């Protein structure tokens, strides 16, 4: 949501430097419509698995792609697609699940999908089929409107060398021995949701839905944070991918709630100076996903088939394995572990164990009962905004 998405853009640009595997063969039977390119408005890094250009994705999908770089700001996407010229310009658009699909579908900016036309849909991770909130992140009024690309369960990073333990609770952020060495994300969405999960699951505050709190619940969570802020527990609230990496890598903070790629890159930067890990919290995590949607304009222009071909790539183990290995994101399909083992030329045996270990921990993190899915537009968003301002002013 909002700043988180805005700042994630910086990461998406940065991640293009990570590189990815070489162009692979085309999917049998998938051929691009003659001369027509799929015009997509997408995050420029993650959604082409960190590659420098879209050629590998084009080869996989068997289509031409004309991509326009997009930030992940909800306001920008809404304005462009609902009141702007987004439908004239783009056939497909990427954004966050758990709100944006509802917003765009309710305004008739995107159209429902026929998942039967996406062969890899059968491999989608089970929680998208089983109903409940995860399934809802792709649906509006029961119809599927989007195809998931990546997801993750946000947690905290810590320096094992300095802390000397592997924390398994968000409570470590409020341990007085780390006073002034803790940082939170400067975004009320993920920060308040994760803190609500902690306070709810540890029995400190009674909260119904951690990702859609009532104004009183928002107040209680923010008052808890204000109290700790006044005690000097927090060094800062980070904003932006590089900012987060810098904070961790410089040793300025020892514990920080953040996106997983921040910990991965910061750990690479620090070398032996620090030993940065990404924890699994027993209370749970905010889970989120990115997805791709077919616009009304795209369907009118006959770009449906092109969309389905690209969506099929996003649900392929080819994409899932690479996004896991290079960016640390959760694949959206089953069978990635087998794919990695079966392709040692792309995933050498020396690194296979590490990648599969990340996948195992990630899967365990997703299975936590205390998790709450990201909600881009909580019902009482004004309460979130107002109390966040109070936290800032405290």
């Amino acid at each position: 949501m909002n700043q988180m998405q805005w700042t994630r853009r910086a990461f998406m640009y940065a991640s293009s430097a990570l590189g990815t595997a070489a162009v692979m063969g085309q999917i049998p039977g998938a051929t691009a419509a003659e001369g027509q390119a799929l015009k997509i408005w997408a995050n420029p890094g993650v959604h082409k698995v960190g590659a420098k250009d879209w050629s590998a994705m084009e080869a996989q999908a068997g289509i031409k792609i004309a991509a326009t770089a997009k930030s992940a700001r909800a306001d920008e996407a809404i304005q462009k697609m609902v009141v702007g010229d987004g439908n004239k310009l783009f056939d497909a658009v990427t954004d966050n699940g758990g709100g944006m699909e509802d917003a765009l579908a309710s305004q008739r900016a995107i159209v429902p999908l026929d998942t039967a036309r996406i062969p890899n849909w059968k491999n989608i991770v089970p929680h998208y089929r089983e109903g409940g909130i995860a399934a809802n992140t792709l649906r509006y009024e029961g119809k599927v409107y989007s195809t998931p690309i990546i997801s993750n369960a946000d947690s905290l990073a810590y320096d094992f060398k300095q802390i000397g333990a592997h924390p398994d609770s968000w409570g470590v952020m409020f341990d007085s021995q780390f006073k002034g060495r803790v940082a939170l994300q400067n975004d009320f969405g993920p920060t308040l949701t994760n803190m609500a999960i902690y306070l709810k699951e540890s029995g400190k505050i009674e909260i119904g839905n951690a990702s859609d709190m009532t104004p009183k619940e928002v107040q209680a969570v923010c008052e808890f944070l204000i109290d700790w802020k006044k005690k000097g527990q927090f060094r800062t609230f980070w904003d932006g991918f590089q900012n987060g990496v810098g904070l961790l890598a410089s040793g300025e903070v020892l514990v920080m709630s953040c996106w997983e790629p921040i910990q991965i890159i910061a750990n690479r930067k620090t070398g032996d100076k620090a030993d940065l890990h990404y924890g699994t919290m027993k209370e749970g995590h905010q889970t989120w996903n990115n997805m791709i949607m077919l616009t009304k304009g795209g369907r009118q222009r006959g770009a449906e088939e092109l969309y389905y071909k690209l969506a099929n790539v996003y649900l392929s183990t080819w994409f899932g394995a690479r996004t896991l290995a290079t960016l640390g994101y959760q694949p959206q399909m089953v069978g990635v572990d087998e794919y990695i083992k079966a392709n040692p030329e792309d995933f050498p045996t020396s690194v296979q164990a590490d990648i599969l270990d990340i996948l195992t921990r990630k899967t365990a993190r997703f299975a936590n009962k205390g998790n709450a899915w990201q909600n881009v537009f909580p019902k009482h968003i004004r309460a979130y905004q107002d109390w966040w301002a109070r936290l800032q002013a405290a």
Partner: protein
Amino acid sequence: MSSGAISGPARAGGGRDIPAPAARWRDYLGENGVQKWVFYIPVVFFLLFFAAPMALTVVWSVFERTQFWMEPGFTLFAYDNFFSSARAENYLFSMLHGAASVVIAFAIGFPIAVFIRRRVTRVAQHRVILLFILPFMISELVRVFAMRPVLGRHGIVNSLLMELGVISEPITVILYSPLGVIIGDVMSFLPFMIFAGFLALEAVQNYIFEVCDDLGTGRVRLFTHIILPLAAPGIFAGSVFIFVNSLGVALVPTLLGGPGAVNAGLIANQAIVALDFPLAMAISTIMIVTLVALLYIGHRLFDLTKVLEPIS
């Protein structure tokens, strides 16, 4: 006829004056033609790109918020929300930080301007002043970001002081704190004070300094009674630039501020990303009113028309 095209309108048939092409063009481009209207271009530009957006900002601030946009109406809810929430407090803090940055920038920048004006040879003055443009050639993001390895816990300042034995523990108050924001603002916007101060002093004729020297005016008296009053409009102009940037540029509190540090620009930005457009417009309107009030006070005190008026 042959010369009519150059010297004046041609006469044909029944004696009626018909302008030759060149003469006609001259009329079009003359004082009663395009030249007459060309002076209105700045006015049109101002109306289109300054007055109209500002007017729209004010109008939108009283619109009704909808789920994703806003609709015409009249409500002061956004203003009520601003003043009854912590945003007003954040805004005031932002103004305080801006004021502190102005004072520090004046204390550092104006003496530099005086030094350049009085001690550097006339020929070299503009070259020296141009040196202060160099930092502006680097992205502001990079400039502000680069302060973190300098001011951080393990940064250059702390490492040096610890190496020298001046401190035993890192000083943490200079980064990720209100002081960090002020340091960032001063470092980012100091050239505004130097430029404005220098320009103001450039209008002060040398003989004024010479007369003061002849009369044995002390340095303090020279500064407080001569230099400062003459340069006041320029100093004020530089101060406004710094204050406005401090209030509006979100980068500095984002990168150097403490937990949740904001300025007015960031408050408005946060309202926009939460799709609360009327609130963002209300905050922008409040910023406009603040700055107009500031300019009015400045004009009453210092007569800002003197900023660009050379002393004759």
